[in-house]
């Protein structure tokens, strides 16, 4: 098989792969990206596409500040002609229990301390002001940030992919990576169904599918795929309503810029990368969401889809180098990864270039599981 040569091969055409490839090219690396289907065909394009400042740990809050700053003007900065549909409709985390409210207060305090000034705790009356359609019965309070919001996950990904291409990145769609070539224990290239490529480094951004790539190198990447589902309704005129999340029952819902409502609930789900939806999801979603948002009771659901979360034991990402020299991973985002593409794409390029990452992400290291240093983030659903 004829062999081609690049500096870095990126596995996965999701938003992290595209952003990583873009940042690598910016640093002058000859980069090729391999996607087994089409750009955004995996979890990125199936994401709920929330963007937020509101996290509960220092590293995530700092990364989020950088993400949010970038995402606001990303379309323009990347010269993307389409619309990223960046929409700061706000994020409202509602609490029905003292313990949840307590946690939200702690999160906001930490965010404020680290410079995220837009986050605040709301009482019930204040909730009614920012979300007038919400039924606040039983609600104790909420945390809120008006600048949190939504983006179109497809155009976001295309914007990075196009910008990467513009910088010379070769993007191979419909190309499956089938193995990683090593020489003396170091990464030397990749096998694909379209031939082999020599590469000095491989960055794996394959989400829930990363496990397989690890196996080629005898690495045990501790990811368990978990199906998650989303429902979308018919479009109706925009109403004042922020993305609302309830940690007590795992439900969330928001109105997208095109007027459709997106409905999600966390429930006991199959642990695989299946794209097939389940019939009981409508009931699960409506049972939890309609009492909180009665105005939606007559709305028609028009579509339902699935996308796998790449869950790790602590539901936090795995980012950085691995015991195999030249093999880097950026995966295991456990459902909140889309919005981290700007910061982590940059950090992956920094890792490959031998630089110190601009934000310390050592708590996301691959070895933490072995070391028993799991890392918990309270603001995840």
């Amino acid at each position: 098989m004829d062999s081609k040569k690049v500096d870095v091969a990126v596995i996965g055409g999701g938003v992290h792969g595209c952003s990583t490839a873009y940042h690598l090219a910016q640093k002058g690396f000859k980069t090729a990206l391999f996607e087994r289907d089409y750009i955004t065909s995996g979890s990125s394009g199936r994401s709920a596409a929330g963007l937020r400042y509101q996290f509960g740990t220092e590293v995530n809050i700092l990364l989020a500040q950088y993400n949010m700053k970038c995402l606001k003007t990303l379309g323009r900065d990347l010269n993307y002609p389409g619309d990223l549909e960046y929409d700061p409709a706000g994020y409202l985390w509602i609490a029905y229990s003292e313990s949840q409210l307590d946690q939200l207060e702690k999160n906001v305090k930490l965010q404020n301390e680290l410079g995220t000034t837009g986050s605040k705790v709301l009482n019930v009356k204040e909730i009614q002001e920012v979300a007038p359609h919400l039924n606040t019965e039983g609600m104790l309070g909420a945390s809120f940030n008006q600048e949190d919001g939504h983006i179109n996950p497809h155009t976001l990904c295309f914007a990075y992919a196009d910008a990467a291409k513009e910088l010379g990145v070769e993007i191979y769609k419909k190309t499956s990576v089938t193995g990683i070539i090593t020489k003396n224990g170091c990464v030397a290239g990749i096998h694909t169904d379209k031939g082999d490529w020599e590469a000095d480094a491989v960055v794996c951004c394959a989400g829930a599918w990363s496990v397989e790539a690890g196996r080629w190198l005898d690495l045990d990447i501790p990811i368990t795929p978990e199906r998650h589902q989303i429902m979308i309704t018919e479009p109706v005129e925009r109403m004042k309503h922020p993305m609302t999340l309830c940690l007590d029952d795992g439900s969330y819902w928001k109105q997208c810029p095109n007027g459709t409502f997106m409905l999600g609930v966390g429930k006991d789900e199959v642990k695989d990368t299946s794209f097939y939806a389940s019939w009981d999801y409508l009931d699960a979603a409506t049972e939890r969401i309609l009492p909180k948002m009665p105005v939606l009771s007559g709305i028609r659901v028009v579509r339902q889809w699935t996308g796998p979360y790449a869950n790790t034991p602590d539901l936090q990402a795995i980012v950085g180098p691995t015991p195999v020299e030249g093999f880097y991973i950026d995966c295991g985002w456990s459902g909140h990864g889309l919005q981290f593409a700007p910061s982590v794409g940059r950090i992956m390029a920094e890792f490959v270039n031998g630089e110190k990452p601009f934000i310390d992400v050592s708590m996301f290291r691959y070895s933490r599981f072995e070391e028993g240093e799991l890392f918990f983030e309270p603001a995840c659903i």
Partner: protein
Amino acid sequence: MTRKMIKDHPILNFEHEKKKVVKFTFDGREMEGVEGEPIAAALHSNGVQIYRITPKQERTRGFFCAIGKCSSCFMVVNGVPNVRTCVTPLEAGMKVETQTGMGILKPEE
């Protein structure tokens, strides 16, 4: 206004006179149509061709596919937006309105 109907046909016999005619309103105007026929058909027989105005470019839209697939004939029926009038049967007293934009969700009473 009299409804436009095909009276004589070389093959088909519509038996219009045997059908139950009911009254409904379109944007406040009283009209007549056959009970159970699609709302869109009833409107067409009354000479109404514009069923909605699109949200972004404010284009007029009317009947198109007649099988409930294309979204062209969405209207507000009895206060409910986005009703596919080509496959929704006409009932006596229905309040049918031109839909402007995406339709507004009304709070439950």
